[in-house]
């Protein structure tokens, strides 16, 4: 989905503020939210990582930007526990003593019909183009590189295909590629002639470009 989480290239944000010697967790609830996120996936196996990432993406954009990282972690996890029927929204609100905003629903038709690519189609040095897709569900090709051409720097092993994995689609694994894009092509006018952005992309997201 083209949601607020897909932040790459959005303008209007201020400086990046670094805290010196930042601890792993600042507050106890943050440690607990992190542990809940991992334990629901690893111990309970309530949902997988792709479903989890998508649950955060479905948060209302205003809530997403207002929330601390660990509030997003908790909101996504709680949303899935409710959607899977493990807990109810009502019991959470009673226990929390107030409102408990969850993420929005999954789109009606979240997956595109992208042909599975169990065998790698591309090699290091190939020129590829990212398909100009806009799935309504989970997808891990950032908008800023869609439609653009890049060069394959590296081929990684097969990993679960996130679009189907997040939406209970057929089991599917594909290679990913580290694809290098010229910054001057992604954002003409930013003046970064020799800078590049490398995006790690599943085979299905790509098409070959004849040299």
């Amino acid at each position: 989905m083209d949601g607020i989480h897909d932040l790459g290239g959005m303008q209007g944000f201020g400086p990046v503020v670094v805290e010196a010697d930042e601890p792993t967790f600042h507050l106890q609830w943050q440690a607990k939210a992190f542990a809940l996120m991992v334990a629901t996936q690893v111990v309970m196996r309530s949902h997988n990582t792709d479903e989890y990432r998508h649950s955060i993406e479905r948060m209302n954009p205003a809530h997403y930007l207002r929330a601390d990282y660990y509030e997003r972690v908790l909101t996504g996890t709680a949303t899935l526990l409710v959607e899977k029927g493990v807990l109810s929204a009502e019991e959470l609100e009673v226990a929390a003593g107030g409102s408990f905003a969850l993420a929005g629903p999954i789109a009606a038709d979240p997956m595109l019909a992208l042909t599975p690519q169990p065998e790698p189609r591309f090699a290091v040095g190939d020129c590829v183009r990212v398909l100009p897709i806009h799935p309504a569900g989970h997808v891990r090709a950032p908008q800023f590189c869609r439609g653009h051409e890049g060069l394959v720097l590296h081929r990684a092993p097969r990993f679960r295909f996130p679009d189907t994995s997040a939406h209970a689609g057929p089991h599917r694994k594909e290679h990913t590629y580290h694809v290098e894009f010229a910054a001057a092509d992604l954002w003409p006018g930013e003046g970064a002639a020799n800078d590049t952005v490398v995006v790690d992309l599943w085979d299905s997201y790509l098409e070959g470009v004849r040299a």
Partner: protein
Amino acid sequence: MSNNGDAPIEARTEAVAAALIANKHLSAEDLAHFVHMAEDWRPQNGARVVARAWTDAAFRERLLTDATAACAEMGYAGLQGEYIVALEDTPERHNVIVCTQCSCTAWPVLGLPPNWYKSPEYRARVVREPRRVLREMGLELAAEISIRVWETSAETRYMVIPLRPAGTENCSVDELAALVTREALIGVALAAAP
């Protein structure tokens, strides 16, 4: 609509934890286990990897060929460390890591990501104007050095091997590791001078 009327985040977190524990889906020990695990993931781990790569040519080769195995060799492996790739800086090219869509990081070698890495500010800006962001963060790169920004969009988890600072010929491996901060492992800082 924005939701400003929520119960305090502490109460919401506790509501989820208490319900799962009451229903025996999880135990308090499970939660404590993952908190302790997270506290063992420290940027000092990655710093040791870098210091060894600087001083042990055979290890550097293994790290550049298969960083997952090379890090595991030093005991750094686990969640979000299933496929690690090390990015070696050169005098001509500087590497920077980001995750624009969430906040993926190689937990076992970098630790859980710091707040700045998870902020919309960093995620939105560093892919588009890396030179300006690095400058604001205190790292001024010469114009002829090209920047490669690595977006953690799939399952590869990256770590940067910064350039070894000048004047460190006589430093021990531990002294070298102390020069490598979390920020240097992500690429928004250089390794410190000794």
